[in-house]
């Protein structure tokens, strides 16, 4: 790579972008004017609005059904409120119609007064104040009435106490005083810390996405990409030059954002200086956040660059950016949520980690170790995404998607095959929705029956129906082929090692994202024999899913993806299998199992083998959960509920020999890498 070339490319891109009005507006002008407009404008407008509201005339109606001395006192007290006017007499036919006056906004509040006698002989007035919470004017009427009547009540009570000669101070047995010890800096941090990460992340992405889509997808659209590809610059030089451009402009954007925000805050606090006392804005925290934004920016820039490389034109790039933007918005909102504290798990999730860390920084309450983990993990992701971007930029399929497809159409034959990737995806989404909305409801009503219904009606039956109607050869699609009996033996040998490996993966995930006890209890109760007999559980949780899920995944889905090539098909099916379990914590171990089952289906060309393997996995898990005390050898492997890590070595060795065995019993010459027969 030639640094000089990268600089040439970088300089040209900067020049080009700085002449673009869109970039100037979204990246520079918007941040500068946004905060003053947002804060100063908003605060002055709301206070002005409140004053205006405060001065408005409010009309209420008092429906006095007791007509006694106290109720007249109430009327007198209310009429002393400035701007409040009590309607003299309303002509209505029945009581409900008073409410109509409120509804059609003739009045802002309606008060009904009834009296009752307490058992000790005192008159108690029952007041009901009807108002409309969605109307600001009506809410204000309620607040004014409430405050006024509270004062009145105090007066009335002290009158009563006076009458029986008791000092009214007797009522003040406990007095509560509120004293906030948080210094104003921290209060600012608390408020700002909640929305700052969100605002910064969103503004950074939206600014960078405009530039990124222009840099490569824009070049494709304008037909300039070819000219730089044939130039003497290397492709990595082009990518890095463009990457640096996005980073530079994004950093300037963030800098402007923070600066503008800082000045706007200072302005506001200076205005409020008299009430809040003098204090400094935490400028050090702003600086630290700016520093922290750099790895985040490099990360976003790399993703956006990859999207731009992949897209055919700016419009397409923008439509691919939308999910990224939505995802980022959702993840960055975590700083608003109570109860989310930065821990090891969260510090590894992009965006969430920054959102929480920035909040903690604004609160002056962050741990240095997490700061380094967040930066470190993001830098690793950076390298990966930049690498992907360079790879994409080397891929001619990606760079010339439009041009080649046009010429392909010239001779392309249109073969119709219903069972393809698109169909599988649509089907899968529908099935997941059915599983979530219907299956889970069945299972809540009755766990065991619900599971049986889910497996048979939602998983197995639709596949059979689709295969019938698509007129495909069911036996061939589902690989219902005879297979060497030795395969079954091998699968049985591999079952325990595989279960242990999956368990270890689950254990590692548990270390990073500690599971709640309720989650583990739920999982255990599904497998335990407390409520159901062991045979029922083995049938419902072990055997039935083994058959139904294999028919769906390794039968139907894997066969539909045979065009994608061997490993793509198997891995994609395994990922769907992982998603299907609707449990983020089990996604990885389940997907790993999916790869193994897919491999078995492909290698042995028979669905019976993965079915047996699947049944073995589930049933073993059930047996171990319930009879761990009977399997003495397990004490050796499992210590304090954790599987010992040395188990990995023998487990991998056994699986290695099982794979070798599979190769021996299923010779390669009869196979085809396209997953066909």
């Amino acid at each position: 790579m030639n640094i000089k070339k990268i600089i040439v490319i970088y300089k040209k891109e900067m020049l080009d972008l700085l002449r673009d009005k869109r970039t100037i507006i979204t990246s520079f002008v918007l941040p500068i004017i946004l905060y003053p407009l947002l804060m100063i404008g908003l605060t002055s407008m709301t206070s002005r609005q409140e004053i205006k509201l405060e001065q408005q005339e409010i009309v209420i109606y008092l429906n006095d059904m007791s007509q006694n001395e106290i109720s007249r006192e109430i009327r007198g007290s209310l009429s002393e409120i400035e701007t409040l006017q009590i309607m003299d007499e309303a002509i209505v036919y029945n009581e409900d119609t008073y409410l109509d006056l409120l509804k059609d906004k003739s009045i802002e509040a309606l008060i009904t007064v009834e009296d009752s006698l307490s058992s000790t002989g005192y008159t108690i007035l029952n007041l009901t104040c009807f108002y409309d919470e969605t109307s600001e004017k009506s809410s204000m009427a309620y607040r004014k009435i409430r405050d006024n009547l509270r004062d009145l009540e105090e007066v009335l009570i002290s009158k009563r106490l006076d009458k029986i000669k008791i000092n009214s101070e007797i009522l003040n047995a406990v007095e509560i005083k509120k004293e906030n010890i948080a210094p104003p800096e921290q209060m600012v941090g608390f408020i700002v810390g909640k929305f700052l990460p969100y605002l910064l992340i969103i503004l950074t992405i939206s600014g960078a996405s405009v530039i990124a889509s222009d840099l490569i997808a824009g070049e494709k659209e304008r037909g300039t990409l070819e000219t730089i590809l044939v130039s003497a610059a290397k492709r990595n030089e082009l990518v890095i030059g463009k990457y640096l451009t996005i980073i530079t402009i994004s950093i300037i954007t963030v800098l402007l954002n923070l600066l503008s925000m800082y000045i706007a805050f200072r302005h506001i606090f200076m205005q409020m200086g008299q009430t809040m006392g003098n204090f400094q804005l935490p400028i050090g925290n702003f600086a630290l956040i700016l520093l922290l934004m750099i790895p985040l920016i490099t990360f976003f820039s790399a993703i956006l660059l990859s999207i731009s490389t992949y897209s055919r034109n700016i419009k397409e790039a923008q439509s691919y950016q939308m999910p990224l933007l939505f995802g980022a918005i959702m993840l960055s909102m975590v700083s608003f949520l109570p109860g989310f504290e930065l821990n090891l798990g969260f510090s590894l999730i992009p965006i969430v980690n920054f959102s929480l860390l920035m909040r903690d920084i604004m609160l002056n309450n962050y741990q240095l170790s997490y700061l380094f983990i967040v930066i470190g993990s993001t830098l690793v992701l950076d390298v990966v995404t930049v690498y992907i971007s360079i790879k994409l930029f080397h891929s001619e399929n990606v760079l010339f998607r439009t041009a080649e497809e046009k010429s392909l159409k010239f001779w392309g034959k249109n073969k119709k095959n219903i069972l393809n990737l698109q169909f599988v995806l649509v089907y899968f989404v529908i099935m997941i929705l059915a599983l979530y909305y219907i299956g889970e409801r069945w299972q809540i009503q009755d766990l065991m029956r619900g599971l049986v219904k889910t497996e048979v009606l939602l998983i197995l039956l639709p596949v059979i129906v689709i295969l019938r109607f698509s007129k495909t050869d069911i036996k061939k699609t589902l690989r219902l082929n005879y297979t060497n009996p030795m395969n079954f033996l091998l699968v049985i040998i591999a079952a325990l090692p595989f279960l242990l490996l999956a368990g270890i993966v689950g254990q590692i995930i548990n270390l990073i994202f500690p599971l709640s006890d309720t989650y583990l209890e739920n999982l255990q109760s599904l497998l335990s024999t407390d409520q159901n007999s062991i045979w029922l559980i083995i049938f419902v949780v072990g055997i039935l899913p083994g058959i139904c899920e294999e028919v769906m995944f390794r039968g139907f889905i894997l066969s539909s993806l045979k065009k994608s090539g061997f490993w793509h098909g198997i891995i994609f099916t395994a990922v769907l299998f992982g998603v299907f379990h609707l449990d983020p914590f089990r996604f990885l171990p389940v997907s790993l199992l999916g790869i193994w089952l897919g491999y078995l289906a492909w290698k042995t060309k028979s669905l019976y083998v993965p079915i047996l393997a699947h049944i073995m996995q589930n049933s073993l898990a059930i047996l171990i959960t319930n009879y761990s005390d009977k399997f003495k050898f397990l004490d050796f492997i499992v210590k304090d509920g954790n599987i010992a890590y040395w188990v990995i070595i023998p487990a991998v060795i056994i699986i290695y020999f099982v794979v070798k065995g599979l190769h021996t019993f299923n010779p390669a010459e009869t196979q085809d890498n396209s997953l066909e027969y």
Partner: protein
Amino acid sequence: MITVNNLSKVFRQQNGEELYAVNNLSFTADKGEIVVLLGVNGAGKTTTMRMLSTILQPSSGTATLEGYDLKKDPQNVRANLGFLSGDTGLYARLTARETITYFARLYDVPENKIHDRINKMADLLDMHDFLDKKIDFLSTGMKQKVSIVRSIIHDPPIMIFDEPTAGLDILTAKNIISFIHKCKEDGKCVLFSTHIMREAERIADKIVMIHQGKVLAQGSWEEFIENTGLHDLDDIFIHYVNNVVKEDA
């Protein structure tokens, strides 16, 4: 000089089938020679040009340009090559001079020579009036001139023109054609692709007819007349296409 040896390009289609966009193509182009790749739309001309300019990787076979192998030494191939096509664009927000300077730097033209070369080319193509105007404000003809200078600023021994006149008006197209003649006079090796028979007839020293990725026939205009007895390039082309159809049958 360009030597193409059994060059092929296979694309994998969506239905998984393989498609030979270019199939075992071989030809040579010498210094000071204009070779025209002639074929209908979709014949594989652009794919060939893209492979020769190292934008696409050949599936099999190879080619050498000025002695540099396409696969082993793409960097040097690109350095010795100028590429111009009808639909290449320019950066609208840069001026003509900035655009040309950018490409000169990408091609490692020494900094002290860039200015002189731009001036020389501007003299030749009468470009001084708009050298410092932004591309956005230039006419199609002016833009085409900028594109020409961009492609030749590093003075490459080989020029590749992929349908350079497509979509241009007669006057602008004429500029390009005279520029191609100028390249030939300067001793450059010129490869030119088109689907317009007349254009090929006018400028080619040698014509390589391709159809469905394969070479139908190659030779000079005179050789074609001699071999087929026909005098119109349209007829000659159809004659060869029909031959292939008969062979296939």
